[in-house]
């Protein structure tokens, strides 16, 4: 029996190759994701390990719930005076207060030295820190001297002894590079600049407070012993933990972030695998149908049902395994390729290409199991072939009725609508309902697809039957001959395109909403914003205020506010300046209440949490616990302000946020309109030293926000493209098998005078029908889902519905083109058929 299995594969090698490719591509994405995330994990593990190498014990303030700008949890600050106390503890070799912030070096071209979005870190230099080794030059000794790590120096194109500018904690200054050091591990693209301890203290601990101390133990003193000793000298509430704990915590926190990326990528990988499953199922059903006589013959000569089942499943297993193994190999290459791409955006991955046992097992298992599962129904059908079928001429079982599937599918679709509409149209989106509804719609459409094939393909056929006459009609009828097969082939394409179009509608609506809102809300002439991890120094606002023609400047600061039930996005701003630059609709209370020390909340936040004017909330703000905030007003959500949940007074911000962390994240500038061009160049001059601060007018500001949405959109498109590619493979496969099935018919057509060109056209038109059918279904579903998503998110600011007609048109035309491309090989095979042999074939 095994021989028959192997022979079966060998005889049908082309279609097995195509099917294996479908398995392979899905597995490629799975394996690539796993390998990539493995290498990212290793990269960060190495960094964490290196960082933790000099840490035996860490002393830190009690953890607060609020998050700092860089996303880390904030801690209650500790006084620097604690250093002396800790030093006195027996067994302590060194104590280093942790002083860090941002430091950006100006490179030799006069621009910021940075690797895409990777952070630019500055630290105080501790000569006793074992993780830092100076390889050339000397340590910094005073303000204006910096020690730079090797890769940062290389990136900047500078050398030891060079003088350049630097932006250290938002303070532009001239610095001399006194030396270069190695950190002992890659920095994943981050840049590192070290200052002497005194300057670091002045820069990052101006209030005499630091978040933590790093302590090194004397030889022979264990981490635990030292921890317990130190715990006795520090004030109550202060945390003392071992270096191992710190290491584990950091590892975990990176792990969470990497896990998120991995999950994101895996979702797309699994979509690809899912799409591949359709192709596999289709191929096997066709192969079984074509081989009915062969299989019946096996049964007639005494093979049991189980044996026939095993023949088919055995083929699936070999195919799945082959596809998966190749996919695994390609996945490793893909990971290498992705590393190169990611490097462009600043994340340098040095973790190699770790192929762990679990990566291998998961990849192979996914490929194998999906293939076997997809083949199980065709295999069962094969095992039910009666021996007598070997003797019948019309061995192919006619496709059963599709009406039943149509009805079931329709019911599911209706149920989907019944779930998704209430879930999305209410005041508040109910995501569980939306999710279930979307799944029902998709499944319903998949089930109903064979029933929809006839009417939709007829419609699609109108242009080419009009154009090609009989040849077109033949193509249409061929596509309709087996609606299930056509539907399955099209469904594979439908899935990818449905996701593409719903994401497309969402992104287009988001873009439109952003620019609409920015247009209607923003009254400022210019917006100054800082990129990534840095902020605009508070001095910039002071300078801009004094400029000629400037009538109003609104400083928007990001305030870390944490409520008992989670953090909220809060900004600190002056109400008057704000309303001069941004139109705000006050729903209740007043904005001026901010002046009185109250806070103003957004309508969404108020609805979500049931806040009313006059309510008092208890919150952690910055580094201060138990602040009581009174709601003084409610405003409509404001996209122009980046949709804050809450606006707090600037006083509160100044009081609660450490000076080192203070700064504006947005700055709105309104002028009297006399000479905006001149103002712009003035503004640009002012922000120039701050390297990463940009000046944008309203349109540019909207575009920049849209650009963020678009880059995510393109990433998703690229990831979904693989699913679409797999679907196109499916079309090739189905067509090739159909051509093979219809050898005699093609011979007949050729005998009665069909030219090669007409034959090619016929197959191409059939292919295009299938592809466009899939595209139409996919886009219909995608439009519905996109629409629902937009409706559901109206209250979140997605107010404008925008359907990307152009994109959809491109998708439709591309699908038709993909159909044509898919037809090339099958058509070539059909055209090559010898007329006489084809007619006499059996």
């Amino acid at each position, binding site marked *: 029996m095994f021989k028959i299995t192997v022979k079966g594969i060998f005889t049908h090698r082309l279609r097995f190759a195509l099917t294996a490719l479908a398995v392979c591509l899905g597995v490629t994405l799975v394996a690539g994701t796993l390998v990539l995330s493995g290498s990212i994990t290793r990269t960060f593990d190495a960094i964490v390990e290196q960082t933790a190498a000099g840490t035996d014990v860490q002393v830190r303030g009690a953890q607060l719930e609020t998050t700092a700008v860089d996303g880390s949890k904030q801690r209650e600050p500790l006084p620097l005076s604690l250093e002396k106390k800790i030093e006195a503890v027996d067994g302590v070799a060194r104590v280093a207060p942790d002083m860090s912030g941002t430091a950006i070096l100006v490179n030799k071209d006069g621009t910021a030295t940075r690797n895409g979005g990777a952070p630019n870190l500055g630290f105080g230099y501790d000569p006793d820190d074992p993780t830092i080794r100076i390889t050339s030059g000397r340590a910094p000794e005073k303000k204006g001297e910096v020690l730079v790590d090797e890769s940062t120096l290389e990136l900047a194109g500078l050398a030891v002894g060079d003088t350049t500018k630097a932006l250290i904690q938002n303070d532009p200054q001239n610095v001399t590079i006194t030396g270069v050091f190695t950190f002992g591990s890659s920095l994943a693209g981050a840049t590192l600049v070290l200052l002497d301890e005194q300057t670091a203290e002045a820069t990052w601990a101006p209030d005499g407070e630091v978040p933590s101390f790093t302590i090194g133990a004397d030889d022979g003193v264990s981490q635990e012993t030292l921890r317990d000793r130190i715990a006795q000298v520090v004030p109550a509430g202060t945390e003392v933990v071992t270096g191992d704990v710190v290491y584990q915590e950091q590892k975990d926190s990176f792990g969470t972030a990497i896990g998120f990326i991995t999950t994101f990528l895996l979702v797309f990988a699994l979509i690809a695998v899912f799409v591949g499953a359709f192709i596999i199922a289709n191929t096997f059903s066709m192969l079984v149908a074509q081989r009915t006589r062969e299989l019946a013959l096996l049964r007639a000569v005494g093979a049991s049902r189980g044996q026939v089942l095993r023949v088919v499943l055995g083929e699936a297993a070999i195919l799945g395994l082959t596809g998966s193994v190749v996919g695994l190999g390609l996945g490793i290459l893909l990971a290498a390729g992705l590393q190169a791409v990611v490097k462009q955006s600043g994340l340098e991955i040095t973790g190699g290409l770790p192929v762990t046992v679990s990566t291998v097992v998961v990849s192979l298992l996914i490929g194998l199991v999906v293939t076997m599962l997809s083949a199980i129904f065709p295999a069962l059908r094969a095992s039910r072939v009666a021996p007598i079928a070997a003797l019948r001429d019309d061995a192919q079982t006619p496709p059963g009725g599709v009406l039943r599937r149509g009805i079931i599918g329709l019911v599911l679709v209706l149920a989907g609508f019944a779930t998704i509409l209430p879930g999305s149209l209410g005041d508040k989106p109910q995501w569980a309902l939306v999710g279930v509804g979307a799944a029902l719609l998709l499944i319903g459409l998949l089930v109903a697809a064979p029933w929809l094939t006839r009417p939709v393909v007829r419609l699609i056929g109108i242009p080419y039957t009009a154009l090609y006459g*009989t040849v077109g009609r033949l193509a249409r*009828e061929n596509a309709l*001959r087996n609606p299930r097969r056509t539907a399955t082939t099209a469904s594979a394409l439908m899935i990818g395109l449905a996701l593409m179009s719903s994401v497309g509608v969402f992104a287009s609506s988001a873009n439109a909403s952003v620019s609409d809102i920015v247009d209607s809300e923003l009254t400022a002439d210019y917006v100054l914003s800082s990129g990534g991890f840095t902020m605009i120094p508070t001095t910039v606002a002071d300078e801009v205020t004094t400029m000629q023609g400037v009538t109003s400047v609104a400083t928007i600061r990001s305030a870390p506010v944490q409520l008992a039930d989670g953090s909220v996005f809060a900004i600190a701003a002056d109400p008057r300046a704000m309303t001069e630059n941004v139109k705000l609709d006050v729903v209740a209370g007043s904005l001026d209440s901010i002046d009185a020390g109250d806070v103003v909340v957004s309508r969404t936040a108020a609805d979500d949490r049931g806040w009313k004017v006059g309510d008092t909330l208890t919150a952690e703000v910055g580094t201060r616990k138990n602040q009581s905030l009174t709601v003084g007003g409610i405003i409509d959500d404001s996209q122009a302000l980046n949709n804050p949940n809450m606006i707090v007074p600037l006083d509160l911000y100044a009081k609660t946020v450490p000076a080192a962390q203070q700064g504006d994240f947005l700055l709105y500038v309104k002028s009297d309109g006399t000479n905006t061009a001149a103002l712009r160049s003035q503004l640009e001059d002012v922000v120039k030293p701050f390297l990463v601060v940009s000046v944008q007018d309203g349109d540019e500001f909207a575009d920049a926000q849209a650009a963020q949405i678009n880059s995510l959109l393109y990433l998703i498109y690229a990831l979904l493209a693989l699913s679409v590619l797999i679907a196109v493979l499916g079309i090739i496969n189905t067509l090739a098998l159909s051509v093979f099935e219809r050898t005699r*018919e093609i011979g*007949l057509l050729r005998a*009665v*005078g*069909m030219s090669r060109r007409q034959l090619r056209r016929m197959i191409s038109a059939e292919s295009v029908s299938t592809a466009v059918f899939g595209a139409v279904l996919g886009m219909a579903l995608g439009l519905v889902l996109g629409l629902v998503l937009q409706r559901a998110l109206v209250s979140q600011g997605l107010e404008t519905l925008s359907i990307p007609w152009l994109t959809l048109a491109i998708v439709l035309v591309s699908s038709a083109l993909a159909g044509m491309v898919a037809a090339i090989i099958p058509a070539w095979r059909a055209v090559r058929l010898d007329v*006489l042999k084809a007619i006499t074939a059996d």
Partner: protein
Amino acid sequence: MGAEAIARAIDLEKVYGQGEAQVKALRGVSVDFGRGEMTAIMGPSGSGKSTLMHCMAALDRPTGGDVEIDGVPVRGLKDKALTQLRRDRLGFIFQSFNLVPTLTARENITLPVDIAGRKVDQEWFDRVVDTVGLRDRLSHRPTELSGGQQQRVACARALVSRPAIVFADEPTGNLDSRASAEILSFLQNSVKEFGQSIVIVTHDPVAAGYADRVLFLADGEIVDEMVDPTADKVLERMRGFDATGRRS
């Protein structure tokens, strides 16, 4: 008869395979098929009947000699020209699988004309359809027709483009005697009424009796011919062959 020939084989040779496995299916066949005549070809299995038909009908290339259709030599024609020749000048009827299953009877009949992108001559179409008696079956698909009806559709298709000559390889091979008789008398009628030229291969002396002339083929050569045959005369002649045995 030479001037009257609509199709002719000139010293036609067909060799399959090479070396040891070589089979000479046709060993220099020269024959003229008369215009407006129905010619039957008979002979034992493996004698080369189908091979001769395929070569005559430009479906296969002979390894030697030439074929002329209506005075045009087929040798040297490229695929495109061959396709056109088949489409416009030749008609075919096979033993089985004669119809495109996705098309209705009407569409199957007009297929060669449609493929050529020409207009169907409605009058002619009606005449052909009425002669084969398919008027009420035109909108049916092949699966909804009996074997005999399917074969009648195939006949109608072979005639509808007014080909110079129709080749039929055992068109009644799968049919019972009644259905066979219908097909054969229809073919005979088309010769008488429309002056159609037809060549048919058959094993059935009764079928051969419908023809104007019978050619006997054995081992790739024409061994005999009979003009104005009847079933009895043909049967008798075949007995004679059996008695003398096959040459080899």
